[in-house]
Structure formats: structure tokens, C-alpha cells
């Protein structure tokens, strides 16, 4: 992982996909996004924690969908008409994330990206802050989130 991160940082800017959880804007690196789909019909996962919506069928591949709002303890918007699932590919693993709204693709110069100190345990799922003229956007550390949904059945 570290190696690819370093490579990215040598570039001038990074492209992000911005989306909304409740009123706040969040972003993830665009190169991890495979596609965006409307919320699918999910099959619930027995004994799973609440933030796991279930599993879905994406053209023959079964993948897990997580609710990013539940995961980050954010109250979802009342109007779910624009809710969407972003399909990510992380190290060959596909995973879907339910969000309130997709905003846009945005380019951030490296100077506008400020990473967050990783040692602070309370911000483990935020990787950094993206600054623009009128607001700031949270850069979500997806690998960290996915890493943390280790299943007890697997661990045993």
C-alpha cells in the first residue's frame, strides 16, 4: 500500500469522487471507484453488525454493501431519492458503500490536501482534509474501513 501512495504523492494533483453523508461532504480517490449504481436490493447478512446492508449481485459477482453513514455514526438524510451505492475495488476486493448523494468529481492539488495524524484514534476513518475556497471536504480512508470489517467467523 505505502508504495502506491508514494507514487501518487509525486503527482501534481489527485482526482476525487465527492459524495455526501448527511450535510457534510466526503471524498475518496477516484481510482478506487469502479462504478456508481442506484441502491440495490440487498440480501441481509445473518449476525452482521448494523452497518452491513447485506450482499448484492453485481453482474454475477456477489459483494458486500456497507452503509457508510451507519459506520460513521451519521444520521442519514430524510430524502433518500438521491441515495447511491459506490462500488469500490480495493486490492482486488469489491465492496459497495451506501451514501446519501453523489456530488461530483474534483481535482485537488497536493498543496490543498492536508493529511491527518494517524495516531489519533478518534479519526481512524478519515485520511485527510481537502481544502477549497468555500469549504473543506473529508478524505475517507476506505482501506481502513474495509480492513476493520473483519468477520469473526474468519478470525476463528
Amino acid at each position: 500500500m505505502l508504495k502506491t501512495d508514494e507514487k501518487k504523492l509525486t503527482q501534481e494533483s489527485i482526482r476525487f469522487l465527492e459524495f455526501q453523508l448527511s450535510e457534510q461532504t466526503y471524498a475518496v480517490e477516484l481510482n478506487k471507484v469502479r462504478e456508481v449504481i442506484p441502491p440495490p436490493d440487498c440480501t441481509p447478512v445473518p449476525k452482521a453488525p448494523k452497518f452491513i446492508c447485506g450482499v448484492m449481485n453485481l453482474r454475477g459477482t456477489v459483494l458486500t454493501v456497507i452503509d457508510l453513514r451507519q459506520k460513521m455514526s451519521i444520521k442519514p438524510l430524510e430524502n433518500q431519492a438521491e441515495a447511491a451505492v459506490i462500488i469500490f475495488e480495493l486490492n482486488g476486493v469489491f465492496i459497495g458503500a451506501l451514501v446519501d448523494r453523489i456530488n461530483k468529481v474534483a481535482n485537488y492539488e497536493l498543496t490543498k490536501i492536508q493529511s491527518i495524524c494517524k495516531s489519533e484514534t478518534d479519526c481512524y476513518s478519515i485520511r485527510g482534509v481537502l481544502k477549497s475556497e468555500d469549504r473543506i471536504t473529508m478524505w475517507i480512508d476506505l482501506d481502513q474501513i474495509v480492513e476493520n470489517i473483519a468477520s469473526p467467523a474468519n478470525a476463528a
Partner: protein
Amino acid sequence: MDEFEIELKNDFLNEALDLITEVEKVFIQLENEPENSELINIIFRFAHNLKGTSRAVGFDQISQITHEAENVLLKIKNGQIQVTQYVIDILLQFSDIVSKMVIDLKLDLNSQFSISEIVEKLSDIANGKNKIVPDVQKIPQEIQDMAKEENVIEMHAKKPNQEVLKNELDKKQDVKKEDETIRVSLSRLEKLSNMTGELIILQAEMDQYLSTNTASSKIRRAFNKLCKEIQDTSMSLRMVPIQSTFQKLQRVVRDTSKVLNKKIELKIEGENTEVDRLVLEQLADPLVHIVRNSIDHGIELPNLRLETGKNEFGMLKISAYHQGNNLVIEVCDDGAGIDREKLTAIAKSKKIIDQNQVLSDEQALELIFHPGFSTKEKVTEVSGRGVGMDVVKTNIESLGGTIEISSIKGVGSTFKLILPLTLAIIDGLIVDVANQKIVIPRSQIQEIIKVNTNEIYNGVQGERFIKIRESVLTLNFLSDDFKRKSPDCIICLIIKTQTNYYAVAVDDISGQRQVVVKPAPKGSNFAKGVVGTTILGNGKPVFIFDLTEIYKKTKLQAKYLDAA
């Protein structure tokens, strides 16, 4: 090592492994037909090829020993060395060592090996220390010839004139008559079969939609047929012939019979029978065990065979064929057969069964699958340690297969393995639990019965039991696992594990069909017993549960009587 070099080395290793398996049977054939110069030519080309490429990618040790082997082969080719048993043994050792090196190198590209022993043996043979004096005069000439040969090859590469090209093309066309193969990554195959699955779902929907329009019926039929064919083809892509595994068995037969001084005539049938590669991989070890057992315990020593009026050569037949959706492999010998009385006596002396227990013929035969059971008084290199047949049984059962034995004392024994053709498709029962559908492998279900709630007995610690034909079984509720409530009337699946029986309650049964097994994605196996997922005809993913896994800790050991 940079990435390119690693890739180069890995490519070489894969190719080498293919070459080695291909050439193995030639080595064995050589033993039977030492005069056949074509066989020597094939092995020589193999060694020459391997030497060149291994040196090119920097595996000097492989190139060193193949160089020595090449020397031996060259002299055999020129009639300077006779093909004796010893020579063949050493050549086989050489092929073993090379294939081991290749496998080890695949795991660690920097592996080093001690090769001095085999190099010495090979060079001893090449130098005529195998009691045959080579014609020393001839050697320099040979080297010159070889050098010339290599030059010619180089020239071809540099100046491909029309004639040469045409010859090469002709040659290639000759080879092309056989079906050509290419290497494809398994993940790509999986992607194709995933998409095919989706195509079939869409096709079903489309079919329903179009059925209102009669004009389209011709297109519809053609389309449906095509879809079916695409599905069949995509499933068949992962199938490989069983040949490679049978080749390994030839070798096992040869080595084992030599150690035990037995004479074997091996017959192989159906080596082109196809089976899923993943099944085949897990089948090799159990088969080796069975074949070794047949030779060690089954087939008698030559003089004993002659005394009993049998042919000096023991007959061992290994055959494979398809039967419905199963692969059947039979290992059949004309040896002494299994002595049921002896088995029972040993089982008693080892306290596996009670002193006065009476066993049926089948039960007595089943004893050989008991862990720690061995009838051999003496532990040999080949068998007799009492590990083996129980492992064989477990392996076969974990593949979803069964093993049957039939044996007549003095006439011989047959081991029959019945296996699913693929692990990718299972026979599944679709059941409803807590408003959710799940799939349970049919092979785990012994029986399905309906039970009224007033027929459930409560234990003191919250356990529940049901009574079925004189047996009392523990009753487990799947919906407890889903943490949801079940309705009143229940349907019970009687689940059979290797050691026990118990009942599992479900809400309803929706059907039965063959399902394609897909892995459970990350973040979906929180519940015990989730072994995979599958996509139903409506496109919805559901979980496949291994019920023997969930209730492993069921305490009550039930004696279960068949419905018969």
C-alpha cells in the same frame, strides 16, 4: 530481481512443470521398451530444451543437472550406453529431482539445492562407470556434431529463406491437427461464467417479456438455445482430462511394485475423462493411497500367485468414466481380496469394536476406514502405519464424494470413488428461514420430515429434542442463528455428519436446484456455517450454509435408523 526477471522466471517454471509431467510417462514407457529410440529422442529434446531455457533465465542448478542428463541421453541415443534398469532408475530420479526443484523454486525463486549426488550418478553413467565401457574415441566427434547442429539452428533463425519457412509451416500444420490449448487465468474463466450466469437470468426475464409477442418466437427459441450452449461451454472450460493424475499413478505403481517385489500389469481406461481442475487436484493424494494399498495389501507376491493358479503378474485396473453428474473412478485388482474375518479379529484386538459384536459384510469392510486401523503386522515403507484409508475417506467426503468397496476373498477388490464433476456446482435445497432464503447442500440432508410443535421435547438446559422412529435427535433452530422468530409448524431436516445425526428446523422449503457456488464476499461471513453464496434464478444472492459446521457441538450422539 526486477519485475521483468521475476515474470520471466515464473513463466519458465510453469512451462517446465508442464514439460516434466508430459515427459514422465515417456520415462516409464522407456523401461518397457528400452529399444524404442523415439522415446529417447523425446527425452533428449526435453532435457536439451530445459537446459537451454533454465540457463537463460538463470536457474544454473537446473541447467547443470539437465546438462549431465543430456550427456547420458546422448550416449544412449548413440548406442554407447545400454538402457539398463539402473540407468532408468537414475533417469527417473533425475526427473523427480527436477520437478521438485521446479516446485520449490515456484515458492521461492532463490531456493538452492544439493545436487552433487545426482550429478555424480549421472556423470558416472555417462562416463561408463555403469560397467559398460564407452567408446572413448567417439566422444570428440559427438561434441563436434552437436556444435554443428546448434549452428544450423542459429542460421535458420537469422536467414529464414522461403524454403525453410515453408518447411517449418508444414511441420507446424502437422502438429496443429491436435486440438490446440492456451493458458487462461482462472479468474478470467470465473468472470466469464459469472457473466454467463447473468445472461441466463436476463434471458429468462426477456423470454417472459417476449412471450406475449408471437412474431418473435423464432428468434426467442434460437436465442434460448444459444444461451444454453454458452452456459454449457463456459462450465466446460474449467474441465481438464484426468490423464495427468493417471500418469502419476503409473509412476506410483512402478515404484511401489518394485519396492515390494511384486509384478503388476497396469491397465488404464478413460484417461480422457474430464473433471474440474479443483476436484482433480484434491483427488491425486487419495488415489495414490488406494493404489498403494491395492499393491501392498491386495496383490500377492509372484510365487504365491503362481501357487494359487493365478497369472504371475497381478492385474491392476484403474478406470474413469462419467455417470450422470458424477465422475466415477474405479481401482480394481485381482489380488487376495479383503479378509473380513481377519479385519474383525484385528478390530477386536485393537478394541475398536466389542468382543462379541457381530458385523455384517459391509460393516466389516468399513473397518479399513477406521482411524488407526492397520492389518499389516509390519510397518513398511509403503503402508501399514494405519494412516491412509481414513484420510482417503475424509478427503473424498470433503469433496462431496463417496467411496465404495467390494471385495471377494481370493479374487480381488474394487474401490469405487464417486465424485461430483465440479465443485463449482452443487445440488442445493432452497429453504426459508426467518423470511430469508438460504441454500443447504443436498448431500448433507438425510431426510426431511414435518414435526408438530407439541412433539418437541424440552431438555433441562434449553435443548430441544424430537423422536423419529425410535431415535431421539437434538433439534436445532436455524432461526436462532438469524435471531428472528420462527412460525409454529416446523419442517425438520435430518442432517448427517461424519459422526452424528441431528435435526435442524426451518420454516419452509422452496425448492431444489443445482446452484453455482460463489465465495462469500468479505464482510458477509459473520454467522457460523456460511460457506459461500449463490445467485438464484431471480438474480438475488443468497447464502449457502454448511449445517454440519454450525451444529458441530451438538452433544447427543444419536443412533439413527434408516426409513427402510
